[in-house]
């Protein structure tokens, strides 16, 4: 297993586009596009506060960050494992982890295995709750649109 790259210590500049965030001009392919499917969303006079998309959290609702939360909800995971499992570059993974850590959803622990640095990532209680809420929202979306959430990614 190769060495994990150090996490980027610099906080993300809110004025700058977050490379780990989906580009607002380019909708995240993982993001469901409810607008065309839900007439209530197209009419500002008739908002639907109960629509499941209102429960989506921008921090969590990103494919790779959801992947990080799903893996760490299962077990404390090493940086290298996350990088390989999600197919990310070390820099990209670091940025996603910074976003999640700043939001209090994961804890990043740095240590050594012998003389090799090792970075472990564990989910927090807040992270578990956010993941559960996100999965419930996605499941509800699937249900509304007639799909079958047969393969759920719940923490059980």
């Amino acid at each position, binding site marked *: 297993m190769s060495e994990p790259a150090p996490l980027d210590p610099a906080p993300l500049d809110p004025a700058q586009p977050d490379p780990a965030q989906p580009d607002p001009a380019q909708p995240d392919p993982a993001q469901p596009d409810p607008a065309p499917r839900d007439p209530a969303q197209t009419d500002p006079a008739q908002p639907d506060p109960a629509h499941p998309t209102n429960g989506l959290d921008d921090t969590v609702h990103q494919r790779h960050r959801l992947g990080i939360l799903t893996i760490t909800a299962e*077990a404390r*995971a090493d940086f290298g494992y996350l990088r390989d499992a999600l197919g990310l570059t070390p820099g990209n993974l670091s940025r996603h982890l910074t976003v999640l850590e700043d939001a209090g959803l994961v804890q990043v622990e740095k240590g050594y295995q012998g003389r090799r640095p090792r970075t472990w990532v564990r989910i927090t209680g807040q992270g578990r709750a956010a993941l559960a809420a996100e999965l419930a929202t996605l499941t509800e979306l*699937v249900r509304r*649109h007639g799909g079958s959430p047969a393969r759920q*990614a719940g923490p059980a």
Partner: protein
Amino acid sequence: MAEQEAHTAPEQPEELLGELADLRRRTRTTRHGYWFPLILFGLLTCGAAPLYVAAAAVPTRSGAYTVDAGPLLLSGMPAGTSSFYVGWYWALALVGGYLLTLLWYRWHARRSGVWTPARGYLITGVALTVLALVIPPLTGLLHFLQGLWLPLGDVWLRGTLAFLIIAAGLWALARAERSRALAVIALVYTGAALLSSLYNIENVFFRLGWNPRTPFGWQLTALPNVLLPAAVLLAAGLGAFLVQRRGGRGTA
């Protein structure tokens, strides 16, 4: 990178849920390492078998059935003269086995990159072993403690309480590993351990015509009660090893 992400990104919530479920399954498969404690305790149980045979030795003087000094709950009270070694063997084997398992999980975590919290498993096993060691001597001082173990004589008289302590550890491990397969193994093993504790399994063999005529005589009749739980652990451990090795290759 963006191109790669766009290529692999699911487009529907259903696909995203499916992808997350797959991630969770792969992570769970990677972190499973329970074949090791199954094989370890299976071998430790086989290692105890000669001691059970020795403990079933015919007393030298008629009627000289004695209870040796030693951990009574782990030694049991077999019909022979010496159960001393069985008790101390299990005291050391249980604590050593649980500690080795913890080390195994730490090594497995460093190697695989995912960490199974095995501390609850260790605490369950070691705490039950220590309780089994200290409760009988403490009963002399605290008489109410006899209510904890004397009424349960049936499960420790044959010197098989160690099997139930191993079973309790397996249940804790099944929870830590979130493994239904290990829960099923723990269920089967608990059944075998209870059978060994409550029944002389050699009766079945005797009815089938097995009446050992060896220099050891009837001492060998103690073996089925020891080897049945050992066989369950070894068979389950071997199966889990093969499955986990195949799963590890599949997810590599």
